[in-house]
């Protein structure tokens, strides 16, 4: 099989826009064909740094990464719009590129004329375009609009026409940047079908997308770029997982940092008003059904409008209700304190991106500032919309507290955590059996769950589909995990 795209040590520098460089950059542009020759490192931005990969003809390749990671620069380099600072880029055959919205269209002239221009740029003769003209217009669904100047098109129309031209001009390599996200559902499906046909004909696709699902589904190989550096190259599943994990970790860090900042602020306030009690930040204990049901009544589901106690087994804590109406994130007397919470996988590695059904361990570190004889550890899982998925605590599990002193570690192990794919938030608490809070954390951390197949709701049991009778499927999904 031949190589359609070969990128070798691709590095791209952009100059920073400082007025003093203009003469120098012109000189180097004239002499070297580059704008950054001879500029000091602090005068340039490294958009791509030593990117190396190749794509076989007939394969599809996905590129993921956060904003500003160099994805578009890579695409523009492949399209021949910009020249690499160093390294090599080879693309075999005719390249069509859909870069950003309305790429390649002259806004002032009609869709029809733009089709001819686009075709000509892609190397088609007028007669060849004549032959495809009808198909292009039909696929785009633009109808009479094709005679209007392109600037009057909606963003969806732009993309529809752009994709239609690109796919019908029969390129050997198609470069697509994110644009498909703009079209409506029906058009996206049509595009994806066309892309499948395109790939089936042995053509090559390079897809840049924020939609990890799209990359996982359509790419044979994927590349994760971060700040211009090649973080990971490999199977789309692996690359997407690693990316998700990194994003979740970064978000977790942000959460924790924000929380720490807030605690520090609260502590500073407390110091100013020494006379105020530590526990009660001015709030009133709201009565909840839990309070009525007594200390032994397990109440896993607390109403969403009330401060939900994670797996509360007792009266609601005297949760502070700040005047600004914002949900409190942490409250309690701090006689015992949650100092760290981690999610661990079966191998004991920290993970915030989980496979549904895999083994997960919630590890909680606590520190008791005085010896305690009454204590309960609890966790609660919530969706981002505060729907409680599951909660439990040591009291519900039947553990009778005896003594907690100094530092302790509590682990809750789920051999198979079956959650519907999505994002989840974790609440963690240490409290007395009657619900008196030592340390309640709401939304302590977030994690994501993925699965080979999708699902909705809260519960994701192990499952499979079986069929009988005259019933056939065009494509079989991967087996559910």
């Amino acid at each position: 099989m031949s190589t359609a795209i070969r990128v070798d040590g691709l590095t791209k520098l952009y100059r920073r826009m400082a007025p003093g460089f203009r003469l120098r950059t012109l000189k180097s542009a004239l002499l070297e064909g580059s704008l950054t020759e001879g500029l000091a490192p602090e005068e340039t931005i490294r958009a791509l740094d030593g990117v190396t990969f190749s794509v076989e003809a007939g394969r599809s390749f996905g590129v993921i990464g956060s904003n500003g990671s160099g994805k578009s620069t890579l695409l523009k380099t492949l399209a021949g719009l910009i020249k690499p600072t160093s390294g090599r880029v080879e693309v075999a055959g005719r390249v069509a590129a859909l870069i950003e919205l309305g790429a390649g269209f002259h806004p002032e002239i009609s869709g029809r004329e733009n089709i001819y221009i686009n075709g000509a740029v892609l190397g088609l003769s007028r007669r060849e375009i004549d032959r495809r003209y009808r198909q292009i217009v039909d696929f785009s669904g633009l109808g009479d609009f094709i005679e209007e100047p392109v600037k009057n098109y909606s963003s969806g129309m732009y993309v529809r026409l752009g994709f239609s031209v690109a796919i019908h001009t029969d390129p050997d390599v198609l470069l697509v940047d994110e644009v498909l996200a703009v079209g409506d559902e029906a058009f996206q499906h049509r595009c994806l079908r066309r892309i499948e046909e395109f790939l089936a004909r042995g053509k090559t696709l390079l897809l840049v997308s924020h939609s990890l699902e799209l990359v996982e589904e359509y790419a044979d190989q994927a590349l994760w770029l971060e700040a211009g550096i090649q973080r990971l190259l490999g199977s789309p599943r692996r690359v997407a997982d690693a990316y998700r994990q990194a994003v979740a970790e970064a978000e977790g860090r942000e959460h924790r940092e924000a929380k720490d900042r807030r605690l520090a602020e609260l502590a500073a306030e407390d110091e100013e008003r020494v006379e105020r009690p530590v526990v009660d930040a001015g709030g009133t204990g709201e009565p909840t059904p839990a309070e009525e049901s007594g200390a032994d009544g397990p109440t896993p589901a607390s109403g969403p409008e009330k401060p939900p106690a994670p797996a509360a087994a007792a009266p609601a804590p005297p949760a502070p209700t700040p005047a600004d109406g914002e949900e409190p994130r942490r409250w309690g007397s701090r006689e015992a304190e949650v100092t760290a919470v981690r999610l661990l996988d079966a191998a004991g590695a920290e993970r915030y991106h989980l496979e549904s059904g895999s083994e997960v361990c919630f590890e909680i570190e606590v520190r008791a500032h005085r010896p305690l004889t009454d204590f309960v550890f609890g966790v609660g899982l919530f969706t981002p919309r505060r729907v409680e998925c599951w909660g439990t605590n040591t009291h519900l599990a039947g553990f009778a507290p005896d003594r907690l002193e100094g530092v302790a570690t509590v682990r809750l192990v789920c051999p198979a955590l079956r959650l519907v794919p999505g994002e989840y938030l974790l609440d963690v608490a240490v409290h007395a059996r009657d619900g008196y809070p030592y340390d309640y954390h709401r939304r302590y951390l977030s994690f994501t769950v993925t699965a080979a197949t999708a699902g909705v709701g809260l519960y994701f049991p192990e499952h499979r589909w079986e069929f009988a009778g005259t019933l056939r499927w065009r494509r079989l999904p991967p087996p559910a995990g």
Partner: protein
Amino acid sequence: MYRSTRRLLRFRSLLATLVNRELKARYRGSLLGYFWSLVNPLLLLGVYTFVFSYVFQPRIEGADPYVLFLMTGLFPWTWVASSLLEGSQSLTANAGLIRKAVFPAEVLPVVSVAANLTHFLLALPILGGGLLVGRWMDAPVGGWSALLLPAIVLIQLPALAGFALGLAALNVHFKDVKDILTNLLALAFYMTPVIYPLDWITFGPLRWVVSWLNPFTPFTTAYQQVLFHGVWPGPGLWLHMLGWAAVAWLAGSWLFERLSDSLAEAV
């Protein structure tokens, strides 16, 4: 140089489309439309006729009647000035296209030149009418030499296109090009024998500069010879024009190609 030429030839239908669009855009929403391309020079001719018949009455050897002499040089000069001004801005004005698409950027400056050529051609009937009226009034103007006009235009076209390409590429790096060019063109207007015959310059060095360093002098002289004087230009003048056309085209397209690698980034 070779690449620009080849690509311009390959994308000539794109060129035609864009020129057409440019012309349509200029008169969009106006009542007279294309007619303005005729009305403008007609009004200009009328105003100058009035001024130079009743206000000043210049009697210039070799430039009489003066209005017709002036118009013969002025219409081609308008083509030069507006082509270069618009052409130099054509890349920056279409930055979006160049940044995001595989678009033949060399087409854009040439579109400005070609669009302004159209205006020049539309003004020619007015000039022709003026010359006919002049002949009818027994002025010794015009003649069959006017048949050579297309040849001069054809030589001037690559000259202007070359200048426009080079200026447009430079303007991507220096926005100052516009201001420099505006002033330079104002100066060049007086350094070109448009409002006076070349013979009027008696100061030797200045005459040498105007004759040999100004690329537009031979073209202006040629227009005056074939249209106004009714004289067939000599081989020297043809070579002079061809020389400038070659120099401008080669230098402009060379500059453009050298800078084209970095256009999408710098624009």
